[in-house]
């Protein structure tokens, strides 16, 4: 069996490596999603990959959520660095297909609320977030930071640090 046929068979059998994020924790985040679904010749989609990031910058894959045109309540693990990777994909019947990943890192604390706005429209895409401290109606923007900017911490007691380009 050729490699392509094997890969196809693995995907069909659900062995692609992706798993659905269980989303069973107390809900502390809301994702507002807007998409226009693409065109006759192309299809667009958004997925959210979730990982925990340890002080050494190692990751543990928690699962993936397919984001459709709706509002989704999300339960993020507390007191751990969480990497949210929004994967914007475009599958074209003709021409090129592609994906772009926008990353955010957060460390949710008890009582905090998170709001994410994720759009994939004809003119472009966006993924932004705000965090609302416990009991407060006004939040602050979450800076975008990426796993590749993570600096491993030597002391296990200290938090993971990130450098943000720019």
């Amino acid at each position, binding site marked *: 069996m050729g490699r392509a046929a094997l890969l196809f068979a693995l995907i069909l059998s659900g062995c692609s490596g992706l798993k659905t994020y269980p989303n069973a924790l107390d809900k502390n985040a809301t994702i507002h999603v807007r998409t226009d679904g693409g065109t006759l010749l192309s299809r667009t989609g958004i997925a959210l990959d979730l990982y925990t990031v340890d002080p050494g910058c190692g990751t543990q894959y928690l699962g993936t959520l397919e984001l459709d045109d709706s509002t989704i309540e999300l339960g993020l693990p507390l007191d751990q660095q969480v990497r949210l990777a929004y994967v914007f994909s475009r599958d074209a019947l003709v*021409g*090129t297909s592609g994906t772009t990943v926008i990353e955010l890192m957060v460390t949710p604390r008890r009582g905090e609320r998170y709001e994410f706005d994720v759009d994939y429209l004809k003119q472009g895409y*966006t993924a932004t977030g705000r965090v609302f401290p416990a009991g407060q109606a006004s939040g602050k923007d979450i800076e975008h930071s990426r796993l590749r900017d993570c600096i491993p911490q030597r002391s296990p007691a200290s938090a993971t640090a990130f450098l943000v380009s*720019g």
Partner: protein
Amino acid sequence: MKRKLAVGLTLSAALCGCGSLGQPMSPTEFRQTVGGSSFGTVESFEAARPYEQVVDTLRKKANECLAVGTTSSGTVFQGNMAMRETSHSTYKPTLSVTGQSTELAVQVDFGDHTVVQKVPEGGFYILVADATPAGANATKVTIYRGSLGKAKEIGAAVRSWATSASATCPNLNG
């Protein structure tokens, strides 16, 4: 290997926007190269927003939209054989503030393509944008970019970010 070399040469020529093989190694060299080439574009305009707001938007949107990795796949022909080829690109924006002037430089790294010349650390320069105050409530913006690749989309996005804080990310897919 031949195909990778060809792709590398095409990238080298196309991304510098000048058709020559001398790669700009810094934003300053990129400005000079684009400014002196018919393949490059230099666009200057005044945004009706205070300088500090424009810089804040550029910083946020560049970090959100241009510090990304992309994967593209498409059909290429080798002889009469159609093959699916996948490529990865890593974009890197760098915002530098010096006194009353801000520079946004955008680089792209195409991974292990073979190129016959030195590539700047962080990848090829594809766009440089400068912002300076133009009075209390306006900002002068100058965008230098090549004419091919995603530089056009990024240039349009930088223009919209300078003029409006609510603009989206350019479509770098495909």
